[in-house]
């Protein structure tokens, strides 16, 4: 079993390329998630965010480029890298036939978390997310938001060095969004790790991310802190986003074409 390189950054992506047949989803993408940082990948639908996330957690095998999770390659050192990652996928598709508790027990077993720690964390998370009553329900019967909460719990159960969250807040209720935001902030600050999250909600990025990468059709168009991106483009992050992704003109035309006949 390898040990993580404590000097290495939580995540380093270099020259990543992901293709689906003829279509290129991610083109020569490079970025870093630093220790204690929440890094946001911002992009429209189909910009390549999820493909990047899936490559980081070892679900997709990229055509070229390199990914290092605290020095480990998710393709060739999958088990070592996965031990350090907590993942919340965009769509909470799990074992529908298991109850939430049975699923979390499976995750705790595979991640070799001792019973006392696992139960303490489960108790805290269940209370915070108010899902004590749903723990024995089959996952297939849970609402989208509750599934998302279960995934959050599963991702945080082992206190990962790198949290990878694909559109993590879209199905949560306002109370849970607030708790999740605080959890992510605390996690980044206290566990000497990093957080990579993808979103197309500007508000989420503005409130949560230390740095943001703007992805457009698989290409990184801009990167920096929220202030840097605003400063280099214009007043709001939304405007900066539209300018960098060259969608400003298109948006204006679309709005005009949708006007009342």
């Amino acid at each position: 079993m390898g040990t993580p390189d404590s000097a290495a950054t939580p995540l380093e992506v270099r020259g990543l390329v992901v293709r689906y047949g003829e279509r290129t989803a991610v083109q020569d993408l490079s970025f870093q998630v630093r220790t204690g940082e929440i890094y946001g990948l911002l992009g429209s639908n189909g910009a390549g965010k999820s493909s990047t996330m899936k490559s980081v957690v070892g679900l997709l095998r990229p055509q070229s480029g390199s990914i290092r999770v605290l020095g480990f390659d998710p393709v060739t050192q999958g088990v070592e890298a996965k031990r350090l990652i907590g993942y919340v996928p965009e769509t909470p598709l799990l074992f529908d036939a298991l109850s939430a508790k049975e699923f979390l027990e499976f995750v705790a077993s595979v991640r070799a978390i001792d019973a006392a720690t696992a139960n303490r964390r489960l108790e805290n998370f269940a209370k915070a997310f108010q899902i004590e009553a749903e723990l024995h329900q089959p996952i297939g019967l849970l609402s989208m938001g509750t599934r998302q909460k279960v995934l959050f719990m599963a991702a945080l159960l082992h206190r990962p060095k790198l949290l990878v969250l694909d559109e993590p807040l879209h199905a949560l209720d306002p109370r849970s969004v607030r708790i999740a935001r605080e959890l992510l902030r605390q996690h980044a600050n206290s566990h000497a790790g990093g957080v990579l999250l993808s979103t197309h909600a500007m508000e989420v990025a503005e409130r949560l991310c230390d740095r943001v990468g703007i992805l457009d059709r698989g290409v990184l168009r801009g990167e920096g802190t929220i202030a840097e991106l605003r400063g280099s483009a214009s007043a709001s992050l939304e405007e900066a986003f539209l300018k960098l992704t060259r969608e400003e003109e298109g948006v204006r035309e679309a709005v005009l074409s949708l006007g009342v006949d």
Partner: protein
Amino acid sequence: MSPTWKEAYRLHVVAFTELAYQAIYAVRQGNLPPTLAAGSLARKARRRVLQSKLLVSLLLAFITIGTGVVLGTTAKTFLAPALAAPLYDETVIAGLLLLDVAFLWWTGLQVLPSYLSSQVLPTLDALPVPDRSVSRAAFLLFLRLFDLPALTVIAVTPIVVGRALGSAWAGLAIIPGAVSAVVFGLALSLATGKFFLRHVQGATGGSRRGTVLRWAYLVLWTIPAFTMYGYVSLGPGLIGWMTSVTASGAGGALDGILATYPFPLASLPSLLLSGSVTVPDAGLGPIAIVVVGGAVYGSITWAAASWLLDAPGALARASAGGHAGVVTDRRLVPRSAPFAVIVKDLRIASRTPGFAFIILLPLLDAVAIGAWTVLAAPTASGAFNIASAAVATAALLATFFGPAFFAIEVMGYSYTRTLPLTERSLVLGKLSLVTTLYAVAAGTVLGIGLARLFEPLSFLGFILAEFPAVAAAALLELGLLVRVARRRGLPVTNLYSGSWWVMGVSIPGVLMAGVPLALFEIFRSVSVTTGLGVMAAVALAELAVAAPLALAGSSGRGA
């Protein structure tokens, strides 16, 4: 064609591609499709569904043609020389029709999760299309999953029966029976599917009583599979019983059989050919029973077919109506990774009939034959033969269905692949499940048959000698499947996606488990000890070869 059916047909053509795509790649069950262009993914999915339907159809055709051989005069002379020809023909044809019902029912249970999880209906419901058109589209979609198998039953049965009985009219007379078998098979799979949604899939976890109840329901689900098994193993017994009933003149029992489904419909060819359904001088009573029974079952078939028009839509819209039970214990009990895989699989199987069936079949087989050992064997050495046959069957069943345990991984597949679960843990977990199944089944036979067994220590030796072969077979199968899944990025899933691979991998596995059994049969003529010695040596050699092949390099590789 009415506008409703026209619209339904148009909708179903589009929706079927989505259904095929979901059935093969199980995206809504948590899998990631291979990185291919959308068009080629859809084409591949449609092709694989077609291949699977062809496979099921070929199997049905094979069974029907086999029955045609049994229907011939030569087989009758050998199997039931004293039984009246009409009764013999009716019994064989009724067995075939029951088998068709059971096979379609069982296939339906396998396919139903793909149909329900595809979520095609909620998508169609959102369109500005009348409900009736959507319901009809759902019916066509469900039918489309069974079109080739259903057509095979309806087309091949009359040809085979007509040819075997030497009359085209006899062949035509079995068409109502074949149609009713198809309708009943599909209706049963939908009706039990509804039941499954409410009581099995929708059942909450947390209590021992709930778990026991779920497994009890699942035992009921194995009944169709046992019909197939019963056809092969109990068919000759039934014919023998019919012979003795006829000889003893027990008319009441015979009338009861004639009134039972599917005898009235299976009797129509005999009635048409000879004007009799039992013996020549039986009078009009049996004929009246067959005619009235035929009319009753015909009406039920009609009613079931009408119900089928709306049932697929209603089922796809119904949510699993589970209700929260009393939460008894919320504590997590983390285990070692291979053990966690076993517990997860058993829990999933307790809410998934397809997987429960795989676990229950060898066990129920062992119990059934074990009980038979005690009750029926005339001598102690006869009991040894029956018991060893039961253990051999359990070994072969466990290894034949072993690869299907890998199919459980299709659920939540992409999420599991983000966990640090090694291939070794996964394979060892599944291996433990297969070998435990064998051990429990064999132990059950030993327990039940202990009173009648000749030299129980020799029998224990037989069970232990086969154990390494079962482990070797399971390792070989699982090792190959892990490699296939890794290379193709495809979960080896249900009947409609990975059947070719699962069957392909099962063949060397079953051979591996079967070779020591065959060698025991050969060498026991020298002495039982020699037979057991050869069996154990070969089984251990197989394990020594299979284990490194299956586990090499798997400890550090993610599952």
